[in-house]
């Protein structure tokens, strides 16, 4: 993009109205813009930020953060290496982490891990003479179960006398207050979808009781911050600067350390989970059935050797971890945050490549941001990226709770997987099916495995079938060659 083109684009004169769902280059940071290609994330550095960026790339801080895996790897792109590059400009090349999850799809533990990473980097930067100018969860991406800072341009040289962390307000709004709101007000973390810049102290202040406003964890960042707000107005803001650089560093350390304590306390409260104890409490599964099911999935892994697996309704991740252990990159979805929390913790502890998301495939996360092009919808991030999709004991939820016809479910699966699908059929006689039937026998009481196979026939054929002792059926499907034609039938083929 030329300078003129960029100016026109900045002014909103050039707009791509093709209607396709695609990410636009980032535009908020005046230091640069991020572009995504199939294989890389490319960062175009604005001329004013070139010197600072090159200094950071040469710094020991960058090397240390990259070595520890806390910061995304960067290298200067060769001229002409990518079609979008412009000669004479500084472009950085990063590996692309794909698919990614967004903060509104994270569990409490993931929020805490992302916040602690941000504070750790801010502290290391302070010691090395740098400052983290941006501190938002949107700059953190989970590579598998591990958080990584992906915004290299967030680091700038620090005024040694500055005792203020300029990103403090942003950190409090986007990390601390959402966690505090969950702990004290039961506002779900998923609600952060609606507020790009987090919560203002006043948002919480107005919702808290008098006693809660005096709580030691909220007194400064909510109550006093709200009371001080009125006095600032629109005047030029002044920052306290220390006469002694040693004092400035000391103050910054204290501030970052206190934030760390506040984050740990705010993230202490767990959320109620209906399903995280499901595997242990599942009375409709005898140990022999569980073993049989695990053996079936294990055999499928060995037979298909998928490199990318999507586990829909992953629960606490038994099968996601199994797939990751076999070497696959796994994306695991579940709508129960307690279950996903347990899954993410296991994956993090075992160092498995599992991206855990709190998401409901029947109500997938929407696209977000400016023109809906700053963050992709869940389906846009997942479509066609997997060799194998697992849908174990999910189908009855989609049919009975979400009331989605079988044909539509088959159509979606055919768009998600490039080849294989493992599906667990739960028959109407099953106790879990009965629990959700709720007097709708006429509609769903006689649904059979045959109905499922008929509804999936335009998209898939069955390669393998196994009936468990509890009468549930495991099916390995393969996508039809006529997948495209089958997908056109999506919407017409209704099984239920």
């Amino acid at each position, binding site marked *: 993009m030329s300078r003129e083109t960029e100016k026109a684009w900045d002014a909103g004169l050039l707009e791509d109205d093709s209607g396709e769902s695609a990410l636009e280059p980032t535009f908020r*940071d*005046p*230091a640069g813009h991020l572009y995504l290609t199939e294989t890389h994330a490319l960062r175009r550095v604005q001329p004013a930020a070139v010197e600072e960026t090159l200094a950071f790339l040469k710094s020991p801080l960058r090397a240390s953060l990259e070595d520890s895996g806390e910061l995304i790897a960067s290298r200067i792109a060769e001229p002409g290496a990518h079609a979008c590059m412009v000669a004479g400009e500084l472009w950085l090349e990063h590996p692309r982490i794909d698919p990614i999850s967004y903060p509104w799809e994270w569990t409490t533990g993931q929020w805490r891990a992302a916040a602690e990473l941000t504070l750790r980097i801010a502290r290391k930067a302070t010691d090395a003479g740098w400052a983290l*100018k*941006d*501190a*938002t969860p949107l700059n953190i991406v989970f590579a598998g179960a591990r958080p990584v800072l992906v915004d290299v341009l967030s680091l700038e040289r620090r005024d040694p006398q*500055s*005792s*203020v*962390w*300029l*990103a*403090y*307000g*942003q950190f*409090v*709004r986007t990390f601390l207050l959402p966690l505090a709101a969950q702990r004290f007000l039961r506002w779900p973390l998923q609600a952060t979808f609606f507020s790009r*810049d987090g919560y*203002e*102290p006043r948002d919480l202040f107005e919702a808290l009781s008098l006693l809660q406003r005096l709580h030691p964890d909220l007194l*400064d*960042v909510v109550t*006093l*911050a*709200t*009371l*001080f*707000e009125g*006095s*600032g*107005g629109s005047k*030029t*803001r*002044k*920052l*306290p*600067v*220390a*006469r*002694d650089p040693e*004092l400035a560093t*000391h*103050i910054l350390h*204290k*501030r970052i350390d*206190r934030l760390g304590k506040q984050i740990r306390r705010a993230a202490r409260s767990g959320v109620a989970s209906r399903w995280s104890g499901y595997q242990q409490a599942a009375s409709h599964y005898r140990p022999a059935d569980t073993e049989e099911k695990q053996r079936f999935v294990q055999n499928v892994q060995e037979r298909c050797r998928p490199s990318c697996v999507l586990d829909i309704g992953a629960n606490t991740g038994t099968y996601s971890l199994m797939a990751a252990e076999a070497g696959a990159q796994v994306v695991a979805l579940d709508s129960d945050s307690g279950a996903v929390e347990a899954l993410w913790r296991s994956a993090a502890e075992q160092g498995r490549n599992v991206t855990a998301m709190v998401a409901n495939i029947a109500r997938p996360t929407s696209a977000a941001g400016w023109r809906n092009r700053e963050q992709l919808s869940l389906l846009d991030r997942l479509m066609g990226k997997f060799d194998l999709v697992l849908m174990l004991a999910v189908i009855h939820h989609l049919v009975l709770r979400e009331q989605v016809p079988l044909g539509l479910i088959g159509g979606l699966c055919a768009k998600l997987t490039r080849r294989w699908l493992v599906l667990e059929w739960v028959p109407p006689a099953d106790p879990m099916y009965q629990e959700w039937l709720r007097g709708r026998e006429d509609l769903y009481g006689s649904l059979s495995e045959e109905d499922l196979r008929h509804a999936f026939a335009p998209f898939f054929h069955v390669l393998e079938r196994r009936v468990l002792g509890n009468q549930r059926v495991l099916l390995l499907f393969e996508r039809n060659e006529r997948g495209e034609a089958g997908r056109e039938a999506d919407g017409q083929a209704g099984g239920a």
Partner: protein
Amino acid sequence: MKKLLEIASIGLMVVGAALLFERPAYAYADPGTGLLAIQAVGSALVATGWYLRKKIYSLLHRGGATGRQSDELSATKEDEGASSL
């Protein structure tokens, strides 16, 4: 006694503020008005603790206390100062 404590507190805050001065803020991310004020107050408190730590250390050091003892004492004082904000 209460009056004395009040005067001492104000005096300490003045000491903290005297260690700091002001410059205009140039931020890309919105630093927030109230949260920026919280940082300013917090900075003054921590600066007071830092100043006291140095003073106490130098006093004890002059009085023959070991470095370790004075460090422990000053660290306690400092944490008390910083814990409120």
